[in-house]
């Protein structure tokens, strides 16, 4: 993310765009300059809260106030977002699209590094192991957790697979007991070591 990308986003219709990297670098469009310090504090609070809740991969947060609202998209690099005037409580879907577009710009200040890509055949191997624990429920539980965790089977990043493993361990634990769920998670983790 760089200043040009923010300015472009503002020109395209994001009222008060901003970006904050995990390392704390805060960029704001001229319309957002007055909030720069507060946005840095806000981002720091959100990074902390998300890290406390580790297991849930939150990718967007909206706060709708009766005066103003804020929408923020999160990824491994940090936050991009915009403040906007509240209009009856609705959050325009256009803001979400513009934020995604803004994020796609080449990164200069906040390089997004995701952990290694894993070969998709790991999913089939995981199912074979899962079968030993949940039998006939295997395919259903597997597919439901893939959807719940929004996993893209075509491009699997290590962090996504780890999240899926945690979710499968939890789901399995509900069916066959928590110790079995942990055992399953440990076996599945071996597949990506």
């Amino acid at each position: 993310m760089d200043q040009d990308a923010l300015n472009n986003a503002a020109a395209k219709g994001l009222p008060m765009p901003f970006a904050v990297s995990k390392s704390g670098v805060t960029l704001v469009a001229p319309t957002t300059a007055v909030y720069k310090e507060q946005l840095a504090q806000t981002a720091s609070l959100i990074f902390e809260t998300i890290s406390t809740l580790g297991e849930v991969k939150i990718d967007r947060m909206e706060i709708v106030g009766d005066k103003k609202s804020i929408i923020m998209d999160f990824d491994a690099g940090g936050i991009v977002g915009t403040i906007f005037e509240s209009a009856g409580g609705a959050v325009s879907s256009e803001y979400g699209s513009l934020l995604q577009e803004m994020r796609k710009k080449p990164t200069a200040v906040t390089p997004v590094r995701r952990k290694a890509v894993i070969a998709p055949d790991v999913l089939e191997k995981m199912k074979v192991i899962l079968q030993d624990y949940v039998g006939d429920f295997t395919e259903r539980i597997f597919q439901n957790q893939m959807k719940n965790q929004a996993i893209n089977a075509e491009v699997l990043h290590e962090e996504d697979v780890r999240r899926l493993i945690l979710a499968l361990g939890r789901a399995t634990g509900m069916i066959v007991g928590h110790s079995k769920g942990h055992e399953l998670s440990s076996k599945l983790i071996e597949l990506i070591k």
Partner: protein
Amino acid sequence: MDIIDKIPGVIGYATVRADDGAVEETKGSSATDLADLTAYFSSAGEVIKNNLDLGEVRFVSLHYGSNQLVIVRHGDRFIGLEIERGKDPLQIIKQLETPVVIEQPPITVPRSLSMKIQQINLLIDEFGGENEREHWFDLLNQSLGLLGREIAPVIGVVENRLAFKANPPAEKEDEYNGALRYIVDFLVKKAVEEMGSSQARAKVQTVIERMR
């Protein structure tokens, strides 16, 4: 908050006290820890509101995976309602705020689905008896979260019975039937584990007879 049990589209919810963030209640079939999310993000929302001068918060919405959590202030507590991603939070909030005014259309459920619902309710009656019903409702909610992902927003435990909260779309009848079959299998499997196969089989037999 029994009123929330009846709102179509709500997969699960948690209530926390606004003054100290203590969790009061978690209900429904969500696979996510809604209580923690509600407690942490209601508090974060208040700080951000003051920081950025947003005015009174109408709602906070968190998006994760295929769902979103909508957090609203309701009297002296915050309620976190899990709904499907992309659904309009305002519609759910409206039903929470004015439950009496909203007229729900009568719910019509195809026979194949209503029979499955009846079967599940009878299984809960038999397995839960007089003293273990809460435990079996917990298992039922777990199974909805694990195996009934597609059906969870339109179905739920309302006044101690599994029931549809909205009309199931006709084109989804087969899909929903499939999900309910898995839930029946799950409950029977749990019964076998907890009470042994002969007692579980006897209770399943009683259900079959009650359905004739």
